[in-house]
């Protein structure tokens, strides 16, 4: 897989529909097949939104648990993956709100670190801080682009938005991060 290709592949629509139908009839194996296929991207999105492995695992688990119990409520004609991804996104947003006051966990700079390494850590810290100020839709679009390498069209489809809105979300998120990080770096350089 080349670095620019999407990381996950959609199930064939007919196959997915068959699995959903079986799962609705109580077939756990069918649901597990669905879960097994989409668990990784759901986990990766939850991680990108929470930056916490345990929380992301819990969210992925709960999202699929809810999907299993609420499969009847899945809108007719909608694909399974966007639906379960949306569940995970909502859970991640709720988690992030609960932990909004906590400082992000960032490794300390080694005492003998070079100036470049220190700058890298400072930039990462500033980026992590700035990420928390992004709106959920922007974070989701960013995660789907950066982590999953999805094209804008698919990001729009997953967010139920036109492609141009997906691009606008990505651009506004990136522009905002750039501005915040630059500002933070200038401040830290000024302080130093």
């Amino acid at each position, binding site marked *: 897989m080349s670095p620019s290709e999407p990381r996950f592949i959609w199930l064939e629509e007919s196959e997915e529909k068959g699995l959903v139908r079986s799962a609705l009839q109580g077939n756990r194996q069918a649901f597990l097949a669905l879960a097994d296929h989409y668990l990784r991207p759901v*986990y990766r999105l939850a991680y*990108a939104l929470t930056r916490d492995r345990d929380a992301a695992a819990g969210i992925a688990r*709960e999202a699929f648990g*809810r999907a*299993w119990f609420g499969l009847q409520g899945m*809108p007719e004609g909608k694909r399974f993956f966007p639906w379960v991804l949306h569940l995970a996104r*909502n*859970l991640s947003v709720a988690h992030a709100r609960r932990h909004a006051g906590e400082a992000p966990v960032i490794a300390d700079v080694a005492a003998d670190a070079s100036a470049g390494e220190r700058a890298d850590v400072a930039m990462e810290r500033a980026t992590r801080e700035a990420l928390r100020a992004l709106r959920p839709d922007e974070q989701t679009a960013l995660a789907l682009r950066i*982590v999953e390498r999805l094209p804008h069209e698919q990001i729009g489809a997953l967010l139920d938005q036109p492609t141009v809105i997906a691009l606008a979300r990505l651009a*506004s998120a990136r522009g905002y991060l750039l501005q915040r990080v630059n500002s933070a770096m200038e401040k830290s350089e000024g302080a130093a």
Partner: protein
Amino acid sequence: MIHVTLPQLCAYLDGELAESSAELVRRHLSECLECIERFAKLEAQDEILIRILADDPQEEFFQCLSASIPLGQPASAERPAPAEREKPVPSHAGRRAEDKRRNRLGPRTAWIAAGIAAAICCVVAGSAAWVAFRPAEPEPVAPPMVVERQNAAAETTPPVEMEPLREQPPEPLAEPHSEQPPEPMAEPQHDPPEHHAERAAQNVVPVRTVITETIVEPEAQHAAPVPVPPGAPLPSTPSDPVALALRDAKSASLEAAQSKLPASFDKSAEAWERALPLLENSPEALAGGRRELAQSRFQAWAAEPTPARREAAIASARQYLLYAPPGPDRDQAWTWLGRLKH
């Protein structure tokens, strides 16, 4: 020189531009130092984001995770008809989840009811206490009778206005921030709390424009019914040139908002243009200033459209959008840009 916009740069970075557009961007980047620098920063930022956002555990991790998904009894054997779907017969685990949900909703409703009752009690008690213990009026009116009458009134109908009348605050310059546009994403029907939480989170604008806040906030400053003209000296004229320029610009905006004349909006935009270079050291104030400028330009165009005003409004809206923080103000600017272009 017309620079490449941020969305264009992002689309180029993501390989989403058509070949002809990509070629134009490439050509511009080969000539423009400013844009190539911004592009390089975006690329570097993506590298950092990959480090922060991506996590790739081993395969065993996912196997354990998959095995731990809580699959109790299936919710139902068949997808029921819509009428049946409203009242599904849940399994044991499903019932537990349903009970949990009810328990979550129950106390919340109770808390809301209790809060409303407490608020009503406070208003009634407060009004009665205020009427009973307020200082004597300077007018020599028979005090006991007045108090009695007012107490009686307080018992029956709580007074609507507890505070002395104040001057109406001046009309806010900034357009009222409309509600977020309805999110088109279809929410799963059974998941409202997270949805509400998310909506609330979306309504919290991370970085507010300082300028807008300062215009709306100081009621005392604008308590006089006649607005302060743009150039007129204010009671406590600050010596700081930044504060002076800001005051001038805000006054001009206020005047424009009240007169709604295209020339006033032009004047306001010019005042903001003068103020912007002085705000370089404060990114938030700068963003706010850019927004005010874009708004004034747009309103001038909307009041009396001319090609020159349109050009100026598009340029200032783009300048604002380039660095604007996400939020309703940014969305509003996109709307202006859309209207200006069509």
